[in-house]
């Protein structure tokens, strides 16, 4: 009898299928014109991966307490005295547990849908084999990351998804802005990666001897199923170096998940195709940072200082990103800021100690945010611009899209019963439950709650600008129409998820998944009266935000702020993204590059100059000495006699002195 659980060992099939897709499409894509340049092939593989992913998730849902680890040794160093008394192993393997199953479900579902959507959306672009190959590789790396069973392997895929993101952002590489954005994305996340790496090192070092089974190092730092994180068990809580490690992990997560202050790259990453934004920069890759924090908090644990830092970053980013979304005219960037903001919620939840709550929000957010992006993509596909102020009235010609966007917006705004409500409410109430014991969380909690209002406002501002009214504000726009079925099906499916994903929480098996994933820590708090009040507040704020948006932008209105308005400087500040990008560019272009030029000068003229100086010195010396070769034999005789006297002086005075002083021989 084959049971679903037998599938757990085959989780590696998901990345493997996508690698196959990458290889086949990458090598043969140019000859597969009939299959949409390999696109259909990629969809097929993604479908197969979806099947595996769904089956695994289903199996895990059936029995949420399972942890299935399969691994092989990557490389092994024999025991040596010092840090690794039991040897040192790096392993690669798959770990199917509640949270990875959950993530796998998200990745395969959204991945498949986006792949399908791309068939229609990307149809007119060049370089499709590259696109599908890279997208396949991304899915491979992302699913690999999700089921990685140790930090090292995690980091490996983490980097790979970053590179895929780099390539896909720079898909339109002829556009300077695209290649620049790709570079920026890579570099900023690289900063985070570097910190992440240091975090890994610290963990490896500190758990080399103290981890389970005689040293974590010996059997490869595998995330071991357990009820308590290592930090609590092995190291007994607080220590400076572990705090540093936690901060480093936070840095890594902040880079990937675009949290303050490493958030600058994500809006610019919108230079890539919208499908890429939907998959990578909304649903999956950017969520990897949150996933990392969750995994770390579950398996390793954070110190309380770390937790405060995480809460601070998450809470602040929530509000900070939302403010920038408020004024932006670009439909994709509005959603991008919204992504940053929503990721902030997740980080906040993980930081407050509720990893599973964060993951739950991640789960719902993946669907409704992908939905929003795909809907936006549909719009862009139709009208060829991303400028909200040029659009208008699209509701009439694009009903499916308008509805999908609205559903996504409602989910995002946290209006019940849409998915976002349940998860966001969980986040807020989870943090709220910690406030009595951690009063330092208060300001960030308040920011997060305030962000709810802004969220509702900006997403409906976008909706009204794009869809309400009679006709586009820019008459030169082409006549809008819905995309082909391949674009509509994902919208519908995702809409369904956006409506219903939050309701999963009432399914006992799903709850079991969250409970078991969390182990002993991070169980969502039980609802009480205070939570109801909180829910009401957040719903009220959401509705208020929508109302304000309707008031200002409804029916195709355009709200124009007077030039003399006192909030005008604030608007400029927000439009310029708090001048962060300018600052980063200045550091990069002016600061570092100037230093580099100076170093180049030193290299050429000081170091090489010294060498040439020696050369000139010898040449000069040679020239001087050459002049004693006068050609007059009497002079030569004089040298001989002078030499004779010199030898006398040497023999009679200098040499005896030296010998007496230093000893001979």
């Amino acid at each position, binding site marked *: 009898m084959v049971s679903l659980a037998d599938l757990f060992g085959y989780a590696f099939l998901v990345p493997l299928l996508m690698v196959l897709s990458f290889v086949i499409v990458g090598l043969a894509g140019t000859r597969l014109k009939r299959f949409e340049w390999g696109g259909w092939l990629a969809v097929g593989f993604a479908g197969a991966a979806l099947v595996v992913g769904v089956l695994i998730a289903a199996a895990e849902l059936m029995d949420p307490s399972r942890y299935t680890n399969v691994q092989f040794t990557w490389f092994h160093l024999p025991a040596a005295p010092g840090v690794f008394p039991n040897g040192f192993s790096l392993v690669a393997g798959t770990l199917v547990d509640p949270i990875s199953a959950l993530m796998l479900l998200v990745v395969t579902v959204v991945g498949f849908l986006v792949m399908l959507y791309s068939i229609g959306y990307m149809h007119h672009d060049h370089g499709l084999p590259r696109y599908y190959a890279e997208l396949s590789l991304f899915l491979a790396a992302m699913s690999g990351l999700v089921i990685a069973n140790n930090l090292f392997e995690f980091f490996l895929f983490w980097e790979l998804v970053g590179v895929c993101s780099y390539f896909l952002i720079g898909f339109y590489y002829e556009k300077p802005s695209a290649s620049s954005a790709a570079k920026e994305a890579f570099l900023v996340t690289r900063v985070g990666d570097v910190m992440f790496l240091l975090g890994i090192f610290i963990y490896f070092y500190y758990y080399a001897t103290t981890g389970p089974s005689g040293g974590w190092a010996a059997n490869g730092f595998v995330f071991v199923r357990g009820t308590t994180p290592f930090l609590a068990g092995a190291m007994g809580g607080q220590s400076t170096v572990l705090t540093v490690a936690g901060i480093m992990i936070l840095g890594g997560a902040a880079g990937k998940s675009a949290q303050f202050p490493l958030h600058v790259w994500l809006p610019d990453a919108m230079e890539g195709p919208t499908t890429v934004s939907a998959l990578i920069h909304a649903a999956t890759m950017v969520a990897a940072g949150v996933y990392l924090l969750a995994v770390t908090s579950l398996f390793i644990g954070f110190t309380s200082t770390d937790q405060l830092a995480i809460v601070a970053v998450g809470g602040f980013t929530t509000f900070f990103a939302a403010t920038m979304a408020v004024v932006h005219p670009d439909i994709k960037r509005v959603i991008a800021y919204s992504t940053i903001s929503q990721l902030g919620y997740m980080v906040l939840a993980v930081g407050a100690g509720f990893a599973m709550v964060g993951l739950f929000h991640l789960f719902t957010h993946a669907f409704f945010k992908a939905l929003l992006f795909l809907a936006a993509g549909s719009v862009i596909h139709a009208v060829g611009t991303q400028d909200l102020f040029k659009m208008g009235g699209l509701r009439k010609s694009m009903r499916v899209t308008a509805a999908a966007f609205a559903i996504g917006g409602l989910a995002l705004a946290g209006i019940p019963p849409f998915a976002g409500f349940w998860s966001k409410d969980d986040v807020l109430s989870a943090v709220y439950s910690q406030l009595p014991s951690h009063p330092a969380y208060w300001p960030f909690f308040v920011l997060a709650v305030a962000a709810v209002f802004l969220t509702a406002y900006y997403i409906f501002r976008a909706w009204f600008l794009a869809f309400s009214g009679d006709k586009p504000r820019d008459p030169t726009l082409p006549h809008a129409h819905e995309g082909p079925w391949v674009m509509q099906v994902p919208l519908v499916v995702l809409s369904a998820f956006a409506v219903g994903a939050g309701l999963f929480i009432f399914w006992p098996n799903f709850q079991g998944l969250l409970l078991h994933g969390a182990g002993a820590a991070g169980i969502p708090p039980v609802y009480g009266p205070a939570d109801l009040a909180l829910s009401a507040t957040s719903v009220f704020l959401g509705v208020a935000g929508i109302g304000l948006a309707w008031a200002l932008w409804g029916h195709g209105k355009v709200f124009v702020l007077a030039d003399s308005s006192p909030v005008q400087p604030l608007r400029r500040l927000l439009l310029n993204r708090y001048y962060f990008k300018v600052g980063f560019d200045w550091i990069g272009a002016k600061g570092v590059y100037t230093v580099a030029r100076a170093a180049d000068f030193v290299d050429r003229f000081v170091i090489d100059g010294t060498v040439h100086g020696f050369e000139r010195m010898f040449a000069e010396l040679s020239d001087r000495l050459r002049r004693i070769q*006068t*050609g*007059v034999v*009497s002079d030569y005789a004089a040298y001989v006699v002078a030499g004779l006297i010199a030898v006398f002086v040497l023999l009679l005075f200098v040499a005896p002195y030296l010998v007496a002083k230093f000893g001979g021989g």
Partner: protein
Amino acid sequence: MSGLPIVGFVGLSAALLAVGIFGILTRRNFILLLIAIEIAMNAGILNFVYFAAYTGGTAGLTGQAIAVVLVGFAATEVAVGLAIVLALNRLRGSINVAEATELRR
């Protein structure tokens, strides 16, 4: 037979050597140079004779024998020098050594 003044003899040979060196350094006429070399050479020969006289025995005889050989050698050297003088004079029309500076630097 008692000794002649020791300082005197070594002094004389040293002085002759110095005169010879002085001549070699300052004179420009090849023949004068030859003469200067001979003066210096004679200083050495004088040394041998002098030290032979004060050493005595077989070793002393050796000194005188050296002196005899050196006298012959010095004469031969002058002969070779003169051959070069003549050849040089033929080629350059001058035996001023300071003028022969084609080879330099």
